[in-house]
C-alpha cells in the first residue's frame, strides 16, 4: 500500500555498477555450504521432520547479520571497526552541534560523520521524505526524539564501547541553544472510503471506492481538508455529499435503529524484534566495492537505494554486494532506515569493515514502532433484527517523526474496521499525523489490529444492549461469500467466519461460561472470572505483490530453485522448498533464497504500482519486459499465498513445457505409438507417486529419467517466472515452441536442456535463459487499488481469564482459537504462527505500552526492564488450543495468517474482562493500574 516513487532496478538502468544480493549463508562460503540443500533426514513419510533452517539455528551457527564480524567474511580484512550514532533525546531546543570533549583523547573517535560531512561528500538519503535525512543539521530544532546527529567510528572495540558507555543516558555530546518548538509538520495523509450499497447485499453499489474512487484530503492547519460536498460534482464532491447524508442519518436515525457511538484508543508499541537493527559493511577504497551485511525485510529496496545513494556521492562505487541474513521483524525491519546508516558508515571506515549494531536502548529509541490510534465509531443497528445498518468512523493515528508507511497503515486500518461484518453503507475516514515521537511503521497487523479490536469490543457492547448473545449478533451480521466489503470489492473465495462462530457458540467455554464463572469464583474467593470472544478476518498482501522464481532441473534430476523469499522466522524457506512437490514430484533439492539478481529474467519496472494511471500502465505493458514492480517486501503474511503462487506456477510450467514432453517421449516410444498408443493420455490426469510420474496406467517414470530425457532432447529444463497481484493476478499469454497458453504470470523465460539445437542455444541470452515475450497481458486495472483488500483469512478466539481486583492483575487461564488458512503447507509452522501471534496479542491487550514523547523510548532509556513482553506464564501455555478448519478442497490455496492470529485475542480479552468485572475498557493495554481504577 505504499505510495513510493521508485525507478527501475539497477539492471535496467544505465549504471555501470555491478549489484548482487547474496544471502548471508552464501556470502559465508568459508563457513557454510554455498547454497542451501535439503538437510539430512529432513523428510519422513512425505512430511518434513523439522525446519529447513533448523540445525544451524539450534546449534548457534552464524545465521543472523548480527552474528557477523569482519573475520567471518571470506574477502574482508580482519580488522573490525565499530560505530554508534549519537541521537537527540529531546526536541525542545535548537541543536547547535556535537562536542566530543567529554571523551578526552583516549576515547576520541577515529572518524566523526555529521550532516556537514555528508553534505560535503554528496551522501544523501534516497527518498528522504519517506526515511528522513541522515542527520539533523545544526541550527535546527529536532523534528523528533531520537533523531540522529552524528556517527562515531572506532577502529577497535575497547575504545568504542567506552565511548558509547560514556554517552549513554546523557546529553553530554550535544550542544543546545534556545528553547524552541519542534517544526510544525503537515500530516502524512488523510483518506476516506465511502460506500453506499444497493437495496440488497448483492445489488450494485450506488457508490463505492472500487466503482468511483478513494478520497484523499489536503490539509489546513494540520486538519484534513476534504473536498466540498457536491452531489453533482466530481468523485470527491459526490463522496462527501453521500458521507454527509450518512452522518446526518446517524444523527437523526430512522425509527427502529439504535445508534451507538464509542471512542477507543490503542497504544504506542515497540514490535520488539529480538534481533536489533544492525549491520556490518566494508567499503573497499581500493576497488570501490561495497559489501553490506544486514538484517532486513526489504533486501531489494535496500540494495537499490544504497547503490543510488553511493553512486550519487563522491565515493566511487564499482560493485555493491548486499547480503541479508536470516532475520526477524514483525514489520520492524520492513523499509526501515538502518541499512542505509550501515552502508553510509562503511564509507567512513578508512578501508575497514564497520559494524553498526544497536543495543536495546538504541533500538527502542529509533526502530519502527506501532502507531497509536484514536478510533471513533458510530454504528447503527436494527433493534428488531440485530442487523447492522450503517457505519461511520473517524480514526487518527500518530505516525511519529518520519513518514515511512504511515499513510498506508492508516488506510489499511480504515478498510479493516468492518471486521467480519457486512455493512450496507459506510463512511470511514482516517488521518495520520506527523509528531515528535520515534517513527511508526509497518508492524504486524498494519493498522488492522487497532480498528478491528475497537469494532470487536463495540459489537460485544451492542449485543449486551440489545439483549442478544454476542456470537449470535456476530453471526447475523457476518460477511457472506459474494458480499462486498467497505470498498465495494468482492473478496476472493469462500469466507468461512460463520463456521467459526458456530463452532465457538457450541464450545463449552462459551456455553458453560456462567457455570464456570460461578465455580471459579467460589473456588478462588476475591477473584473474578470472565469469558470473552472475538472474531476477525484480516487481509493479507499489499496490493502490489510481485515475486520471481526460477526452477531448474539438472540431467540427473537435481532440482534447484532461486527465489526472492527470505527467511524472517515464519518458515518461508521451508515451505517454498516443498511447494514444488505437487508438480515436480519432490521438494527443491537446493535453493538460493533472497535472490534479487535475476539475469535469467531481466525485467524493467517503474515501481509505481499504486500511483500510476491506467493509461501509463497500458502503455508500459506493451513492453514485454515491463512489470509494475520487481518484487515486494517480505512479510510473514505474504509468503504462504503470494510466493506459493509464484513457485507453483514455475513448477507447473516446468512440468507442462518440459517434463510432460519427456514423459510422452517414453510412453510413445515404439511402433504404433508405444504403450500410449492404445490409450488416450491426458496431462491433467498425471500425478506423482513416490517420485514417479503416473498417468492412465502407463509405466511409472522416475523424475531422474524424465530430467535426463528432457536434457538429451533439448526440452525445457528450466523456467523463470514473474508474478504480480493487485488484488487479482496478472495473467498473460505466451507462445513457447508453438504452443500458446495463458498463465497467471506476467513474465517468463525458459532454458532448454543440454541437447538443445543451435537455434535454441543462441536464444538463451538472458543468463542462460531465453526470454519469452508475452503475446498479451492483462494486468488488474489500476482502479483495483481502491479495492484495498480482496484476500481475507478469518480467525476467532475464546478467552478465559481471571481478574484480581486488588492487584489489578489479569491472568489468561485458557484460550481456544479457530483459524481458516486454506491448505496448510507445513501444519507445524501454521500452529507455531497461531501460538506466537496469540502471545503477541496478549502482550498488546495487557502489557505493552509506552508514552510516545518525552518520557517514551525516544529519550533512550527504554528497555525490556520497563517494557513488559509476555512470558510463558502469561499465555496459558499448557491449556491453550487451536483448530484449523479443514480446507474445502485439495486445491485451496494457502492463506497468509501470521497477522490475523494476533488480533481476536486482544478484543476477546477486553470482552472477558467485562464479563469478569462488569467494566468495558475502551483502551489497551488493560493494565493493573487501569483495572484498579475501576475496581477501587
Amino acid at each position: 500500500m505504499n505510495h513510493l516513487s521508485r525507478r527501475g532496478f539497477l539492471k535496467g538502468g544505465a549504471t555501470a555498477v555491478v549489484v548482487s544480493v547474496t544471502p548471508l549463508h552464501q556470502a559465508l562460503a568459508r563457513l557454510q555450504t554455498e547454497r542451501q540443500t535439503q538437510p539430512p533426514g529432513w523428510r519422513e513419510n512425505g512430511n518434513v521432520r523439522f525446519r529447513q533452517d533448523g540445525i544451524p539455528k539450534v546449534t548457534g551457527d552464524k545465521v543472523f547479520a548480527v552474528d557477523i564480524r569482519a573475520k567471518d567474511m571470506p574477502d574482508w580484512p580482519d580488522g573490525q571497526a565499530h560505530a554508534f550514532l549519537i541521537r537527540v533525546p529531546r526536541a525542545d531546543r535548537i541543536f547547535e552541534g556535537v562536542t566530543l570533549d567529554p571523551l578526552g583523547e583516549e576515547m576520541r573517535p577515529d572518524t566523526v560523520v555529521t550532516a556537514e560531512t555528508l553534505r560535503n561528500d554528496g551522501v544523501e538519503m534516497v527518498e528522504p521524505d519517506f526515511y528522513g535525512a541522515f542527520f539533523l543539521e545544526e541550527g535546527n530544532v529536532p523534528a523528533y526524539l531520537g533523531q540522529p546527529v552524528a556517527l562515531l567510528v572506532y577502529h577497535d572495540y575497547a575504545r568504542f564501547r567506552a565511548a558509547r558507555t560514556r554517552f549513554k543516558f546523557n546529553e553530554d555530546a550535544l550542544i543546545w541553544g534556545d528553547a524552541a518548538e519542534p517544526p510544525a509538520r503537515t500530516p502524512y495523509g488523510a483518506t476516506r472510503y465511502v460506500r453506499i450499497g444497493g437495496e440488497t447485499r448483492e445489488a450494485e453499489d450506488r457508490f463505492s471506492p472500487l466503482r468511483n474512487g478513494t478520497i484523499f484530503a489536503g490539509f489546513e492547519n494540520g486538519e484534513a481538508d476534504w473536498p466540498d460536498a457536491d452531489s453533482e460534482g466530481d468523485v470527491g464532491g459526490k463522496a462527501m455529499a453521500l458521507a454527509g447524508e450518512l452522518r446526518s442519518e446517524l444523527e437523526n436515525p430512522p425509527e427502529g435503529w439504535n445508534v451507538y457511538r464509542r471512542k477507543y484508543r490503542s497504544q504506542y508499541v515497540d514490535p520488539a524484534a529480538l534481533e536489533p537493527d544492525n549491520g556490518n559493511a566494508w567499503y573497499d577504497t581500493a576497488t570501490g566495492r561495497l559489501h553490506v551485511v544486514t538484517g532486513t525485510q526489504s533486501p531489494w529496496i535496500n540494495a537499490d537505494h544504497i547503490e543510488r545513494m553511493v553512486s550519487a556521492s563522491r565515493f566511487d562505487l564499482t560493485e555493491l554486494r548486499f547480503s541479508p541474513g536470516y532475520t526477524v521483524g514483525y514489520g520492524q525491519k520492513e523499509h526501515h532506515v538502518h541499512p542505509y546508516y550501515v552502508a553510509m558508515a562503511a564509507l567512513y571506515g578508512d578501508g575497514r569493515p564497520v559494524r553498526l549494531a544497536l543495543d536495546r536502548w538504541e533500538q527502542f529509541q529509533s526502530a519502527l514502532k506501532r502507531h497509536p490510534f484514536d478510533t471513533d465509531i458510530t454504528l447503527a443497528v436494527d433493534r428488531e433484527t440485530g442487523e447492522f445498518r450503517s457505519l461511520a468512523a473517524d480514526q487518527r493515528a500518530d505516525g511519529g517523526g518520519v513518514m515511512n508507511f504511515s499513510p498506508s497503515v492508516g488506510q489499511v486500518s480504515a478498510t479493516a474496521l468492518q471486521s467480519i461484518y457486512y455493512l450496507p453503507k459506510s463512511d470511514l475516514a482516517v488521518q495520520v499525523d506527523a509528531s515528535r515521537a520515534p517513527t511508526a511503521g509497518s508492524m504486524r497487523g498494519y493498522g488492522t489490529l487497532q480498528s478491528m479490536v475497537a469494532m470487536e469490543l463495540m459489537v460485544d457492547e451492542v449485543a449486551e444492549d440489545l439483549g442478544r448473545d454476542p456470537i449470535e449478533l456476530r453471526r447475523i451480521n457476518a460477511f457472506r461469500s459474494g458480499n462486498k466489503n467497505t470498498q465495494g470489492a468482492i473478496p476472493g473465495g469462500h469466507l468461512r467466519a460463520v463456521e467459526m462462530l458456530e463452532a465457538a457458540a457450541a464450545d463449552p467455554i462459551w456455553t458453560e461460561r456462567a457455570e464456570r464463572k460461578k465455580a471459579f469464583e467460589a473456588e478462588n474467593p476475591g477473584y473474578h472470572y470472565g469469558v470473552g470472544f472475538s472474531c476477525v478476518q484480516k487481509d493479507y498482501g499489499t496490493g502490489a505483490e510481485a515475486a520471481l522464481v526460477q526452477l531448474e532441473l539438472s540431467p540427473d534430476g537435481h532440482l534447484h530453485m532461486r527465489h526472492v523469499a527470505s527467511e524472517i522466522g515464519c518458515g518461508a524457506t521451508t515451505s517454498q522448498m516443498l511447494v514444488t512437490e505437487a508438480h515436480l514430484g519432490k521438494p527443491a533439492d537446493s535453493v538460493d533464497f533472497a535472490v534479487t539478481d535475476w539475469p535469467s529474467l531481466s525485467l524493467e519496472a517503474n515501481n509505481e504500482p499504486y500511483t500510476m494511471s491506467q493509461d501509463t500502465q497500458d502503455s508500459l505493458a506493451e513492453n514485454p519486459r515491463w512489470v509494475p514492480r520487481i518484487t515486494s517486501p517480505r512479510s510473514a503474511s505474504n509468503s504462504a499465498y503470494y510466493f506459493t503462487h509464484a513457485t507453483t506456477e514455475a513448477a507447473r510450467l516446468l512440468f507442462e513445457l518440459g517434463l510432460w514432453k519427456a514423459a510422452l517421449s517414453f510412453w510413445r516410444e515404439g511402433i504404433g505409438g508405444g504403450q500410449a498408443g492404445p490409450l488416450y493420455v491426458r496431462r491433467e490426469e498425471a500425478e506423482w507417486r513416490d517420485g514417479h510420474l503416473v498417468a492412465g496406467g502407463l509405466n511409472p517414470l522416475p523424475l531422474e529419467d524424465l530430467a535426463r530425457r528432457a536434457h538429451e532432447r533439448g526440452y525445457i529444463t528450466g523456467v523463470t517466472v514473474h508474478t504480480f497481484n493487485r488484488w487479482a493476478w496478472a495473467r498473460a499469454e505466451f507462445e513457447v515452441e508453438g504452443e500458446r497458453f495463458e498463465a497467471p504470470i506476467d513474465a517468463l523465460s525458459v532454458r532448454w536442456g543440454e541437447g538443445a539445437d543451435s537455434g535454441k542455444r543462441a536464444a538463451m541470452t538472458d543468463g542462460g535463459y531465453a526470454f519469452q515475450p508475452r503475446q498479451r497481458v492483462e494486468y488488474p486495472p489500476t482502479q483495483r487499488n481502491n479495492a484495498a483488500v480482496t484476500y481475507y483469512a478469518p480467525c476467532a478466539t475464546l478467552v478465559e481469564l481471571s481478574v484480581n481486583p486488588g492487584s489489578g492483575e489479569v491472568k489468561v487461564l485458557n484460550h481456544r482459537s479457530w483459524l481458516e488458512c486454506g491448505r496448510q503447507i507445513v501444519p507445524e509452522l501454521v500452529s507455531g504462527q497461531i501460538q506466537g501471534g496469540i502471545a503477541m496479542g496478549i502482550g498488546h491487550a495487557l502489557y505493552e505500552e509506552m508514552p510516545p514523547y518525552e518520557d517514551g523510548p525516544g529519550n533512550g532509556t527504554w528497555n525490556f526492564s520497563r517494557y513488559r513482553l509476555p512470558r510463558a506464564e502469561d499465555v496459558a501455555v499448557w491449556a491453550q488450543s487451536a483448530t484449523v478448519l479443514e480446507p474445502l478442497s485439495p486445491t485451496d490455496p494457502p492463506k497468509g495468517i501470521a497477522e490475523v492470529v494476533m488480533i481476536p485475542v486482544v478484543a476477546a480479552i477486553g470482552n472477558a474482562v467485562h464479563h469478569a468485572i462488569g467494566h468495558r475498557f475502551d483502551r489497551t493495554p488493560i493494565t493493573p493500574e487501569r483495572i484498579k481504577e475501576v475496581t477501587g
Partner: protein
Amino acid sequence: MTAMMTVFMTINGTETEPLEVPEDLMLLEFLHEYLNLTGTRYGCGQGVCRACAVIHDGPMGARVVPACVTGVAWAHGRAFRTVEGHADRDEEGNVTAVTPVQQAFLDHFSFQCSYCTPGFVAAAQALVERLEVDPVPAEDVENVVLEALNENICRCTGYVRYLEATRDVILATPGLTIGDGRAEGS
C-alpha cells in the same frame, strides 16, 4: 578509559588464551568480540530477556547465567558452555549429533526466527542436568519446565513448542522424574 585486565576461562571445554580486556567487559562481549562465538545472542543488555543465557559449569553443577550482565572479572577462570558447545562436532566444526534437547526443539518446530533459541537451549539443558541429580514427580514436570524457562523471552513462538519439547525430553529420559516408572532404580 577503563582499566584492563588479563582473563582466561574455559569455554566449551577449551581453555582460552589469556586475553587483555577492559575489566568491566561483560561475558557476552568477551564471547562475541574476543572469541567470535556469536551464537549467544544479545537481547537487552540487562539480564531480562535471557537471549544471552549460557551454562556455567560450577561446583553446583550446570547453572544458567545471563552473559550480558556477567562480568569477565567474575567469569575469569570459570567454565562455561555456549550454544556452540552442545552438539557434537567433527574436526572441521560440522555438527555430527545434536543433544536430545536440541533434537526435541527441532522435532517440535520449537523456534521460528531462533534469535532466542540459544538461551532456551541453555535453560532446558541446565534443567535436564539438574533433574538428573534431583528428579521431580512426573506430574510436576509441566510446572517445573514453566518455571525453568519462564525467564526466557521469545517474541515469535508463544513458547508452547519450546515448553512441550522440553517436557517431552524430560518425560522420555529415564531418571529425570519419579513416580512414572522411569526413575532410577525402578
